[in-house]
């Protein structure tokens, strides 16, 4: 007997009985078994075999249940760990267990990306969930985004490296001598995060998303809107710093924008022209805004 068999047995014995309820939707044992089979096949197609470790960094959502049970059917080992872990904590576990794959939330990907180069065993990042949480604060946060052809870069690694280097130069130009960038996505001062970026992809386009903190970021107002148990509040965000803290003075928006654009200009050997959206883009913009505001 094993845990994979256990599910098969239940699916056979009472296929229509509810196994899992999520967001008002009931999933019966038969359906659960089928989804688990699909995932087991999917993982197998990636080369996950008996004895391989599969990390699970997910909250209590159906994908957790599915992944845990698919591991059991494959004879692989589930390694679930805390979704609030950051940097060094995640790294230690993934390194120690030698996980071949991790199943996690999309919004956690930047954390994994940053440590992935030092995890030779970790081949696959499998993502799910629409749980992004981006805080925007008029004082503190500045966003830089890019809609760029993939063919500007050799590959994704190159994209992370070049953009990381360019942003590092920009921040140095501002006078932040201590800023460093090593791996995918985080610019740091003293181990703390000053700015983070990541790439999304759609067809042959990368969408660059960067946020940097101009002044110390205080999330307390935001926490009244999203219920987070008081005792874990300080664990939700990574340790952060800001340009103001690193520079020792209040930064001027304009100088930060100029430094960022100047870095991009030099880094990519391009010029900039300021303009607005085209007519087609405006239509799309209105559509997306409507989606964003829909309840």
């Amino acid at each position, binding site marked *: 007997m094993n845990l994979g068999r256990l599910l098969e047995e239940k699916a056979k014995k009472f296929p229509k009985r509810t196994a899992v309820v999520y967001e008002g939707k009931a999933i019966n044992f038969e359906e659960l078994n089928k989804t688990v089979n699909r995932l087991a096949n999917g993982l197998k197609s990636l080369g996950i075999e008996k004895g391989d470790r599969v990390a699970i960094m997910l909250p209590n959502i159906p994908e957790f249940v599915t992944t845990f049970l698919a591991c059991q059917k494959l004879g692989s080992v589930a390694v679930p760990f805390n979704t609030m872990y950051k940097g060094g904590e995640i790294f230690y576990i993934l390194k120690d267990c030698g996980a071949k794959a991790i199943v996690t939330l999309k919004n956690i990907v930047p954390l994994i990306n940053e440590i992935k180069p030092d995890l030779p065993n970790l081949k696959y990042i499998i993502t799910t969930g629409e749980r992004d949480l981006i805080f925007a604060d008029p004082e503190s946060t500045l966003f830089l*985004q890019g809609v760029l052809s993939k063919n500007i870069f050799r590959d994704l690694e190159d994209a992370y490296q070049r953009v990381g280097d360019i942003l590092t130069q920009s921040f140095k130009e501002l006078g932040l001598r201590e800023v460093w960038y090593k791996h995918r996505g985080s610019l740091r001062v003293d181990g703390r995060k000053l700015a983070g970026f990541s790439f999304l992809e759609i067809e042959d386009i990368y969408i660059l998303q960067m946020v940097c903190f101009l002044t110390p970021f205080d999330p307390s107002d935001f926490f009244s809107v999203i219920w987070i148990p008081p005792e874990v509040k300080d664990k939700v965000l990574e340790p952060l710093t800001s340009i103001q803290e690193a520079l020792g003075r209040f930064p001027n928006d304009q100088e930060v924008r100029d430094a960022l654009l100047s870095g991009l200009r030099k880094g990519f050997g391009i010029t900039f022209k300021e303009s607005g959206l085209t007519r087609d883009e405006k239509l799309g913009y209105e559509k997306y805004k409507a989606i964003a505001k829909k309840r």
Partner: protein
Amino acid sequence: MEWRVIFNNEGEVADLMALPAAVAEARVAGRYILVQKPIPETIILQKVKRKGILVGVEVVIDREEAEKEGIEIAVQPKGGRGGMNPAGTISFQELILRAKDQFTSVESSIDEMAALIYTSGTVGNPKGAMLTHGNFFAECEATIEVIVTNEEDRFVSLVPFFHIYGLAIGLVVPLFRGCSTLLIPQYSPRNFLERMDEEKISILIAIPTQYYHLLRAAKRKPAMKSALKYCISGAAPLPIPMIHDFKETFGVDIMEGYGLTETTSAVAVNSRHKTRPGSVGLPIHGVQIKIVNEDGQPMLPNTPGEILVKGKVVMAGYYNMQEETQKYLVEGWFYTGDIGYQDEEGFLYITDRKKDIIIKGGFNISPAEIEGLLIAHPKVKEAAVVGEKEKEGREEAIKVFIVPADGEKVTSSEIIEYCRMRLAPYKVPDGVEFRESLPKSATGKILKKELRQGYRDGRLIEKE
């Protein structure tokens, strides 16, 4: 080459999504309809006019509160197939969509590893506890007499499944019993109470801080008509007054249990018929518990010593840690590192963590005893006591961390004086530090590790 730059210096939070999405969409579409000139590479610089949160569709937001606080909320469109995905990752949904729904299980024996769960000790790196298929089955069988269920029962676990308590009791037990389980990834106490009614939840699995939040929320609501049969608490001590308070409000007992990652969660639980508040219950079916002194000699009832556990729920060992495994797992007995005693009837009481014991002037001092006293102080909300090595020597000093009660001011001399009146001189704290909050784990345990000297924040990423 010329790129375009768009400035949006006083935007709305929705713009953070809508602007790049619109540009990307027009570029992707532009290639197919072959009209106009191509859209250039684009950089967008944005700041917002008001505070805002851009959220994925699955994040639960309190819209009323957002309006009150003047925080704009914008929701991202669903990603997934054809949508935007983090570059360099595989979409879970795509992975299962392409796959067949038949699968022949790979043969695994009961002694093979099913899960590897990391547990962070008081000192040192986390250790991976190797749990076998057999461990999970043993835990399911061990709890049959204390969590009596029928097929109608509906479980819910507010404890995350990445924690052994949530995984074993909240996920594997219902599967084993053929019961259903409600998944709640993110809850607010108020919303959860409603869901609990709607879904007719009969078995609630949670930790003391969650019970505390639920109680507070329930008191602000009219009478509940819940289907609750059992509530189980673990992972941290449950204050006795809360058990009574909960019974009065919800009409059910909270049954406190005790377990560890290394024992696939529970090894002792208060059953409905045999409950002793303050105790974590009797050893459960198939589990042996022994209390020993430092020489490994069994202790008499009501005399504290280290708690040892034996049975099929005990892990196979620590992953890649032969030495640690041999140290903590001797002849099938797992040395928990917890200090406690059993009464004449076998009820188990947890008093301390072995590694937390402070040795000062040759005395063994129990931090839990001092903490218990401090919490009884009306101006103290939370307290934690740790030992601190004094310069050069092995002698430890007693350091206390205090979170004052809401709106209260308290001084360190007040605290020391209070202890002096009630404790033996060698137990009186040497230093007091005030904090706004104490570091806690996902299951509400105070992380003393983070309060000790020389603690390095493991979340930081260093350059080298």
